[in-house]
């Protein structure tokens, strides 16, 4: 049986706030398969960001295990986690995702530079992606010269340019109007279909949630429902 891309076993995370322990995630069991397009939904404070951070190796669980293709992520060193984030994962955050001094093109190129990919190949890949997601005309703009939606598209381009297995997006549409959000989700879905990239993103925007193939609902740090929706997107 092929291993799941991500498997969470009894995952717990709590934060210490002075004397009080705030439980952010409680006993989360979950597996994500290759090629999924999953949405984490739930009210504010339900633990969506916390879960994405744990999966992305940006934070460590208080209890429980996270397996990446069967390998326990807690056994990895800081350096290995950093490598993992560079090569296996792509990230899109809610806002202010980009390096402000670099152009759109250079922001997407950054990850490829870190990966040590040759100039020609970098140019080819980014050219393709930019073409595909309608950024070709914006390549030389800086983040401050782009709209929020355009910036998020660049962030998505950067997230997939390094050919990750998994893209983690934390409320990528939170700062966008609904039309722009729908376009962005549409675009991510297309990338998923064409490139076979797995996507997990969080959102509490119903229109975005509608596009999910799998909807995982969180409440108070627990998974309260998890359904596949074949007809979506």
């Amino acid at each position, binding site marked *: 049986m092929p291993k799941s891309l991500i498997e969470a076993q009894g995952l717990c995370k709590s934060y210490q706030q002075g004397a009080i322990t705030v439980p952010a995630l409680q006993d989360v069991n979950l597996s994500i398969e290759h090629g999924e397009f999953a949405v984490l939904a739930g009210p504010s404070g339900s633990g969506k960001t916390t879960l994405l951070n744990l999966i*992305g190796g*940006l934070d460590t669980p208080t209890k429980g295990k996270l397996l990446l293709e069967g390998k326990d992520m807690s056994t990895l060193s800081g350096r290995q986690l*950093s490598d993992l984030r560079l090569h296996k*994962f792509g990230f899109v955050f809610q806002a*202010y*995702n980009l390096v402000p001094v670099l152009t759109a093109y250079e922001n997407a190129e950054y990850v490829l*530079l870190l990966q040590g990919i040759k100039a020609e190949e970098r140019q080819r890949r980014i050219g393709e992606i930019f073409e595909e997601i309608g950024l070709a005309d914006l390549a030389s703009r800086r983040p401050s010269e782009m709209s929020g939606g355009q910036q998020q598209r660049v962030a998505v381009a950067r997230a997939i340019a390094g050919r990750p297995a998994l893209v983690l997006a934390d409320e990528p549409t939170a700062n966008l109007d609904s039309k722009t959000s729908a376009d962005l989700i549409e675009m991510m879905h297309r990338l998923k279909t064409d490139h076979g990239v797995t996507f997990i993103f969080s959102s509490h925007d119903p229109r975005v949630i509608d596009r999910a193939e799998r909807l995982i609902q969180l409440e108070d740090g627990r998974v309260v429902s998890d359904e596949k929706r074949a007809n979506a997107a």
Partner: protein
Amino acid sequence: MLALKLAWRSFIRHRRRSAITTIAISLGFAMLISVTGIAINGHDRMANLGVRLGSGHVVVQGKGFQQEQTLNFLVDDPERVEAVARTIPDVQNVAQRVYTGGLISSGELNSATMIAGVVPDIEPQVSDIASPSHRTSGGYLRPRSQLEFNNAPGDIYLGDTLARTLDVEVEDRVVLTASPANAERPASAAFRVRGIFHTGVSELDGFYVQIALGDAQEMLGLDGKVTQVALLLNDLRATARVTKEMRAALDDQDDLEVLPWQVALSELYDAIVLDSIGNYLLHTIVFLIVAIGIFNTILMSVLERTREFGVMIAIGTSRQQLFAQVIAEAVVLAVVAYSVGLAIGLSLHYWMSTTGLDVGALYGDGLEFAGISFNGRIYSTLYPAQVAQWTAIVFGLVILSSLYPAFRATRLKPVEAMRHA
């Protein structure tokens, strides 16, 4: 090189901050270059003047002479010392001299004096006192063989202040009195004023006289011995090396001392050192400006970009890369600021070393320093080694002062950093 590229971008983008830091550092550095250039030039001039008016770059004396300054300490075989000296590279000329204290009188008037017995043919080549540029009247000493008759009074060459004290002019007669070596009674001899000099050094102009070496040896009963063999070099900076080589060559003679001008003219040297301390203070201030400027700018830039760095770590930038990134930003800042400072400083230096600054116009009679007056213009001198040393210090400081900000950046936890709006 990604780090450098990003650093350059960051420099350009934060124009205001970069400009302020650049201006502070580059002006400080430009000031450092020009002030030091002037100081070095002044010191070299003082040393050269001292060396050319007095001792020479390196002197060989009877061991103990420097301390006691009496005729009990002599160079017994000056010809040998001279022969040795002439084989050493960079030795331009060699002068044998006799120095002793004495009394000079003309009729009722008299004065204490420093008597120098010098070789009339050699001295004009090694000492500026003997050169026409410093002569106010008359001519220079002649060897005894050129005098009108064999036992005529010898020539004497003295300073203008002393001439006024004694109320003498060229052709007037004076009498020198001094204690010979190994003799109870002072000896006296008559001399005729041959020429009068002016150097601007009050001790020389007021108390120093020159007579022919042979006359001095005869009057003082020295029998071919001298108190000093002075070496004049092609280059002030060869002093240490020639001193060492002379010491080695005269190793077998432990009755001699070989001294560089810094020791022989210790008062002058001390004055130079004292003046240098002020200059070092300036160095320290400028280097502090560099260090604090860089530290402040880079730390601010790191703290300001917490979120940006958080994102960079999150997407796979390693801590080493981030560290290098911050250091690179400091280096870029420093390279720009340093280059601008160097360009301004060297331009000033170039102007100061060619045209010079007219201090006569600023100070009227010129500046006097350590008994030496600087008339006319001051110039600037820099040695490449000095500039190289600054470069090394600046870049060392830049790296040092960016270590902490760089370290701060690598300590960021991506999750927390990204919560930082």
